[in-house]
Structure formats: structure tokens, C-alpha cells
């Protein structure tokens, strides 16, 4: 598989897109289960799988290699040193596409500083304190001595998506219950057959 081969690119540019490939497989499975239109419960499960794989896709995109959950660690709170993410753009120099984006990031960070703490030390070297890093297994969560947090936004979005998912599931199941109460089946094709028969009868009468 091509996608898997992409893994061999440099560590800094991530681990390829292989897990998107896997997400895609899950999505396809889910979509097939929904559309195959067999048993209604299975369709709902398929819908769930489909939605969860989209959630997985979002979460994947939010991940940063060697990163940690987006909950600020003690050493990153302002009373230690607040500005860690600043020279992110240094890393991106080998990545032509991103140049503009980093600049934007830099500019807006600078703006942000003025608003917030006024003269916070934006030039302080973002070195993590040794004792903290030890505690938080540096090999996993730090890049160039700074804590790498995964992006919180996809997580937030997906919290919403999960809620939407369970709401949809509940509704779908409620409808299934109503359908079952009359047709006494939850197989789509049997329901269709009953419907055809009923409609023929109605047309005759």
C-alpha cells in the first residue's frame, strides 16, 4: 500500500498518512453497513462506525508527534515560563509550504502578547525545568526542549460530534422502535414488502 510507504519520510514531518488510510477503511466499512440496508440496528451501528471514524480522523489531525494532551503542564504555566510555542516556525524552514502560515502565527502571537500580560518575557528561552521534564518523560512530550501539546481544537470539535452522534443514535433507535411496533420486524426488505402489499390493498379499496 502506497500510504504505508509514506511512513518512511523524515521524523519531523510526521509519520506519513497511513493512519488516515486506516480511518478511511473504517469509514468505508461504516458507510457500507449503513447503505447495505439490511437490519436497521446494523445500519445504526454502521452509522456509528462511520461517525466514529470521522472523529478519529479529526483527532488524528490534532495529534503532534511526541505530544501530550492539551492540558498545560505545571512547568508551562506562566509562573514558570509562559511562552513556549514561539519559535515553532524555526522547525518549519525545510517546509516551504508552511512559511506563510508560520509568519501569520508569529504575527498574531506578537499581537496577543500586548493584549495579555503586557511585558511578559517573550524572549525567555523556553527551556523546561529539569525536574519537571523528568517527571513527564521528556522523550514523549518534548520537542527541542519545549512541551509539544496536541491541538485542542479538533478535540473540542469532536466532543460536539460525539454528542451529535449519540443524539442521532438515540433518535434512530426511537424511530426503529416505532417502526417495529407496527411491522414487527426491523429488516428493511421485509418492511418494504409489507408496505408494497399494504399499498396495493389500499389502491384496490
Amino acid at each position, binding site marked *: 500500500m502506497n500510504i504505508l510507504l509514506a511512513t518512511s519520510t523524515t521524523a519531523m514531518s510526521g509519520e506519513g498518512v497511513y493512519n488516515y488510510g486506516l480511518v478511511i477503511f473504517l469509514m468505508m466499512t461504516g458507510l457500507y453497513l449503513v447503505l447495505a440496508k439490511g437490519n436497521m440496528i446494523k445500519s445504526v451501528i454502521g452509522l456509528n462506525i462511520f461517525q466514529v471514524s470521522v472523529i478519529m480522523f479529526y483527532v488524528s489531525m490534532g495529534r503532534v508527534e511526541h505530544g501530550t494532551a492539551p492540558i498545560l503542564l505545571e512547568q508551562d504555566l506562566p509562573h514558570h515560563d509562559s511562552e513556549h510555542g514561539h519559535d515553532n516556525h524555526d522547525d518549519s524552514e525545510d517546509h516551504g509550504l508552511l512559511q506563510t502560515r508560520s509568519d501569520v502565527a508569529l504575527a498574531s502571537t506578537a499581537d496577543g502578547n500586548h493584549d495579555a500580560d503586557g511585558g511578559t518575557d517573550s524572549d525567555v528561552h523556553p527551556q523546561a525545568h529539569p525536574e519537571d521534564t523528568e517527571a513527564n518523560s521528556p522523550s514523549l512530550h518534548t520537542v527541542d526542549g519545549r512541551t509539544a501539546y496536541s491541538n485542542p481544537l479538533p478535540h473540542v470539535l469532536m466532543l460536539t460530534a460525539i454528542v*451529535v452522534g449519540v443524539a*442521532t443514535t438515540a433518535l434512530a433507535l426511537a*424511530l426503529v422502535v416505532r417502526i417495529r411496533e407496527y*411491522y414487527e420486524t426491523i429488516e428493511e426488505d421485509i*418492511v418494504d414488502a409489507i408496505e408494497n402489499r399494504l399499498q396495493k390493498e389500499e389502491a384496490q379499496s
Partner: protein
Amino acid sequence: MIEWSQHLPVLQVVVPLIVAPIIVLFRNKNIAWFLATATAFFSLYTSIELLTIVQESGPIDYAIGNWERHVGIVYHIDIANAYILTIVSAVSAFVFPYSYHSIQQEIPEYKLHHFYAALVLCLTGLLGIAATGDAFNVFVFLEISSLSTYALVAMGDKPGKPPRASLAAYRYLIMGTIGGTFILLGIGFLYMMTGTLNMAELSEKLPALSDTSTVRAAFAFITVGASIKLALFPVHTWLPNIYTHAPNVVSAFLSSTATKVSYYVLLRAMYTLFGAALAAQALQLKLLIGPMALVAIFLGSFNAIKQTNIKKILAFSSVAQIGYMVLGLSMNNLDGLTGGLIHLFNHALMKGGLFMAVGCMFYRYQSVELSDLKGVGRTMPFTTFAFVLGGLGLIGVPLTAGFISKWYLVLGAFEADVWWLAILILIASLMAVMYIFKVIETAYFQEPNTDIEVSEAPLSMLVPTYALVLASVYFGIFTEPMLGAAREAAEMFLSAGGM
């Protein structure tokens, strides 16, 4: 002290959002009805106010939480949003008062307040989609409106009869969720490539990324997702059953609001997000959906002619009318797009009025089968006349709103240099003559069933019906307010992509 008018954009959405839980809290059908109606009128007031402000002094930005646009969610109201908001709230302002008698007959009393809560939630969702300037926020409100729609539709089940409304709702839920998830996926792709969810920022950043496969795929997913919600051929299959089996109020409400908002989403995607970025692909796509729209028009009209259930006739007619709207979009010129946009409004008035008239018939006959409605023109002259007026609009008779849309679509076809398209559009409106006259002939040319005594529908139903139907005539003559907005919106989409 507080400048409320400054908060209008968010009030537009938040007021119904607050009213819905209050309705649940009160658990009283009359209070529920009153609150819902009052909300609808407040929405109408807000949207008209917004429309005037936007027309006079340009787009309004409202930062919720007062965060910058890349941090928080920003409401961006421009002429297109305001226009759609006006359509949605105007229709609700007519449908909600109408619902009082109509729905009491159709669903048990202890569910009424929940019904109104769901109705107001649906309104909230639709308004939210139309007002927001944040891509993900669209998805959230899309789901609010969708979920409430599923429940509202399922309320059309008749006790002891097959739960066809539930079945239709279930199938719509499956399709709608796939559509919604596609949109979510598309938004995800866009976010992945740009790092932002703000539509204005997206439209600034996307042009530079237009040749990436991810952005193109995002375009595809959002278009397909919006098309499912819009019920564009060939993903229209859910619509006829939904409109047929839903309670009459719900059919009237959905047919004139939900598809309009989906159309707006499609427009935003095609013009604002991808307009400049993917001009070429967008053009190709427009070429692709053009034929689909045509097929929708003819297939919908043809199926409408075949039906014997008035609601189904109207439902298939909706498929066709959606085709007109999309056809206008696919022409990609000012007249065509204006035609598509103004048809949103006109169709909302006409189809809303028609479904309400049918609701009046149902109120007395307990059926919408043509065979049961013989001679309804004599037993319910006012209702039937309202139907005729609305039907004339659907056909596109001059001096009704429908004519305005057709006129622009025909001009759009000329402008796009496809004169035969103009002819096809007009031939299709003849098919509308056929299905409308099918109803008219049954209503007037067949002897009423003498064994049931039937009188006119109550005034509380007739007045809103006539208000909508007459509005469709009024706006066929004094077109300026809405046509001006539609034209401005079309110009905006075509020039700057809209942000």
C-alpha cells in the same frame, strides 16, 4: 444602556434557542403555541431589521464572546444571510399561528408542547446555519435542525395506520446523517489545510491551496453533503416521503425553509469558500449539477403528474422546484443566480401556502387523496381558491411570484448562451400546469361526496394561508424589496465570492 440592536445578529438565533427550553419547562400547549408564534414574529422583526441594516451599511460582524475571528466564533451577516434569515422567519411567522388548530387534530394533546419545542428548535437550527460565519458552527446547527426535523416528521404517524412517517423519518435520518457527516468531513479537510474554521478566513486562505487534493476532496464532500440535505437529484429520494407523511404544518414549514437553508449552504460552499479558489473546478461542478438540476425538474414534475395524493404531488413538485434553484446556480451568471435566489423566497411563499391549503383540506376531510377530495372546490371554496392561487404561482403565471423566478432563469439561460435551456425551463412549467390542474379539476369538476358534511376550515388556518398566498401575488408585482436583496446577494457571490 445596552445597545440591543447591536446584538441583533446573535439575538436572531439565541431568542428561539432560549424559547425552546422555556416551552419544555412550561408544559402547556397554549403557552407553547403562543411562545412559538411570538418567537417567529420576533425573528421576522429581527431579520427584516438586519436586512435593512445590511442593505444600508454593509455586512455586520458579531464576535460571540468578543474573541477575534481566528479564536472564537464570529457571526457574519451579509446580504445573503439576511435574505435567507428573512425567508425562514417570514415563513415561520405564518406557519406557527396556523399550526394551532391544524396540529391539535393530528397529534395527541400531551405531546403538543414537545412538538412546539421541536418546531422552535428546528427554527433555531435553520436560523443558526444561516447566520453563522463559522464552518463548524454550521454543522452544529445543521444537526439541531435535522434532529428536530426527524422527530417532527415522525409525528405524522396516524394511530392504527402503518407508521409511514416514522419510516420516512428513519430513512431521512440515515441519509441526512451521512450528508451531515460528509459536511463534517469536508470541514475537517478544510481545517486541516488552513488551520481555521472561520469562513472569511477560509476564503482568504483557500485560493493558495486550490491545487491540493485535500481541498478538492473537501469541496466534493461538502457539495455532496449539502446536496443530500437539499434533496437534489439523485439524492432526492428521501424528500417525497417526508413531505407526504409529515404533519401538514411540518410539511409546510420544511418545504419552505429547510431546503432553502441547504441551498444557502451549497451557495456558500461554491462561491464563498471555493469560488475564488476553485474557480475552474467549481465551474465544472456547476456544469455537472446543471444537468442534474434539469433531470430533477423533469423527473420531479413527471412524478408529480402521476401522483394521486396532493401532498405527494406537492412533494415531487418540490423536487422539481429545487431543480430550478440549482439550475440558476449552475448558470453561473448574474441573472441565473438571481433567479435561483429569488426562487428561494418565491417558492417558500408558494409551497408554504399550498401545503397550508392542503392542510386546511385535511383538517376537514382527514385525507389528502384526490379521490377523497372530489368537489372540494364547492365545499371549501376559499381554501381551494388559495390552492389555485398558489398553484398559479408554481406554474409561473405572470403577476405571481413564480413568474419572477422563471423570468430570471430564462434570461440566465440566454446569458449563458443556451437558448434551448430557456425553452426547457418553460416546458417544465407546463408540466406544473398539468399537476396543478389535476387537482383543480378534481376540486371543481367532480361531484362532492354527499355523505360527509364539510365546511370551510377555521379562520385561524385560513388567514395565514391567505397571507402567504397573497404575499406570493404581492411579491409578483411589487418585487423590489426581495428581488433587490436577491440581486445584491447574487452580485456579491459572483464578485467577491461573498466575504
